[in-house]
């Protein structure tokens, strides 16, 4: 299929779709990161760790419930809530005391959180590789142009847009979502309206982390769950948010697509340097539009 003479149309199509489904996971994680950035103005370095906790929690719930289809769905739904609770505890006990401080301190706090969560995961789940299995009907693959596309990727292609729509409805149609969005644009205004700013921050932070956990749970069946998956993800997530435009949800979508697709085609064309393609794409975007493709909320 991937010969030196030429790349078949089927391979192109498959890599396109696989890249697209990978972009969906990136989008779910990055929209959370972007949301926190928009409201709190802090790049949450611990976001990758929460994504990792999402994956590990999914594994634990999955095994605890016997590993069937029910266990899978329960893991997918409950794992993000585990992450949300972890983040709520961190936010209410420590993070909220820093909102009045210099910005760099918030950034460093999230870094400290990353260091701590990373080791806690090691303590709780150990350093082995873990995996969970999707239910029967999501296993195997569909035939496509004579090649095959894994069913789980199709599932991701459906879930991604659903989450995007849900998030859009939530931030545009519900009261608390609107408040959070307004806070991203003008914090003082929200404070002046008599809304408790500290709780708006808490809410935004927890929602962002919830999305990180959801991304972790969704990615779990496709990879080996292991410590270190946080490091791989977080820089990618940062870059996606930056090229998309800080705090812009659709920007996170555009950035994820760029990242996911360049990576996927990179694997096709130059496997050894596949990792270089998305970074190069990011550099090119930033050279042309230093503040990201879509309008930043800042």
């Amino acid at each position: 299929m991937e010969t030196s003479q030429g790349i078949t149309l089927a391979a192109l199509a498959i890599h396109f779709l696989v890249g697209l489904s990978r972009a969906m996971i990136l989008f779910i994680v990055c929209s959370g990161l972007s949301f926190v950035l928009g409201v709190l103005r802090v790049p949450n370095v611990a976001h990758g760790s929460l994504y990792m906790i999402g994956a590990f929690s999914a594994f634990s719930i999955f095994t605890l419930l016997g590993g069937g289809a029910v266990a899978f769905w329960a893991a997918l739904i409950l794992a993000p809530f585990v992450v949300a609770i972890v983040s709520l505890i961190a936010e209410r006990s420590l993070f909220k005391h820093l909102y009045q401080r210099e910005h760099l301190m918030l950034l460093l706090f999230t870094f400290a959180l990353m260091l701590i969560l990373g080791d806690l995961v090691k303590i709780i789940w150990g350093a082995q590789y873990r995996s969970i299995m999707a239910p029967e009907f999501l296993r195997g693959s569909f035939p496509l142009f004579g090649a095959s596309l894994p069913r789980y990727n199709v599932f991701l292609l459906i879930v991604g847009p659903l989450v995007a729509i849900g998030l859009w409805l939530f931030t545009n149609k519900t009261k608390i979502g609107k408040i959070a969005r307004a806070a991203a644009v003008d914090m003082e205004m929200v404070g002046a309206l008599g809304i408790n700013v500290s709780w708006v921050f808490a809410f935004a932070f927890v929602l962002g982390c919830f999305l990180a956990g959801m991304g972790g749970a969704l990615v779990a069946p496709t990879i080996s769950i292991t410590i270190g998956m946080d490091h791989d993800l977080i820089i990618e997530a940062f870059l996606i948010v930056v090229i998309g435009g800080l705090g812009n949800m659709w920007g996170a979508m555009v950035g994820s697509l760029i990242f996911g697709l360049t990576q996927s085609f990179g694997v096709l064309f130059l496997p050894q340097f596949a990792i270089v393609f998305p970074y190069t794409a990011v550099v090119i975007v930033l050279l042309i539009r230093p503040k990201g493709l879509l309008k930043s909320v800042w």
Partner: protein
Amino acid sequence: MSKGGINLKTFWPAIAIAVILFFLPPIIPRFYTYILAVIFVTSLLAMSLNLCVGHGGIFQFHHAVFYGVGAYTVALFLTKTSLPRGVGFIAGPIIAAIFGLLIGWFCIRLTKLYFGMLQISLGSLVWAIVFRWYGFTGGDDGIHGIPIPEFIDSTNSRYYFILIFFIISLFVLYLIFKSPFGTTLQAIRDNPERCEAIGINVKRHQLVAIVIATFFAGVAGVLFVVLEGSVFPDLLFWVLSLEVFIMCLLGGWFTFAGPVLGAAITVSLRTFVGVYTEYWTLILGVILILLIFFLPEGVMGFILDKINPEKKEIIEKDDE
């Protein structure tokens, strides 16, 4: 009592420490000599970063890249070419500074967080290439068994080599810190808009600071190769960048010698706590949180504050 523009009084403690460091290797175990050398290398890296972060207010988020570039440059020169070895040693810092100039030139158009983000992406690109290019950089294996010149092939001789270059670098950094350039840089940190308004080309000034800082990061990288005889991609990984960032904070951003203290504390903790537990990063994280809440100016900043509560700066009134 100043001569040649340098006030000797402020140097006595530093000279005393340097003299003690010179006499240590014969009397302490070899392992401690090695750890001290690690501290020197790490301190120099932290000091160079602090020129940007603590004194220049530049969000230099990915400083480790330049450290790694310096280390890889000398490693590649020593393993892949037959040029005199001195060439590699000189090329390390220079190539690092060229990388600093290029990456800095792109980033300097942006400010604060955007600057930091763009630097992380450009730096990660360099990391990704090093990580993958097996034919040239050895990929994720790195390069091992780098032929170090014979005169520095024992623990003690390496120690002295590193110590000497560490002291020279610190002295040069101190001169820069106390120069008109350094003073202006600190003014830019405090208030860049005002600096523009009094006729300072802020961006150019910051770019020069980045080039100087990356040069010394390159020196630290070369010294790392002298010490370890190997290089690997983790030297350019962003986690190291943030760790060095913490060292600056821990020691005290706004003081000159703070980062040395921060690096010394971090390296010793890692070495000696690491013996008892594998959860070293957990402890680092807790220390960082304690710092953020209780010592935002760092250990050195805290000490200086206690010594000098009136917040006066010593200024010689020299009639020259």
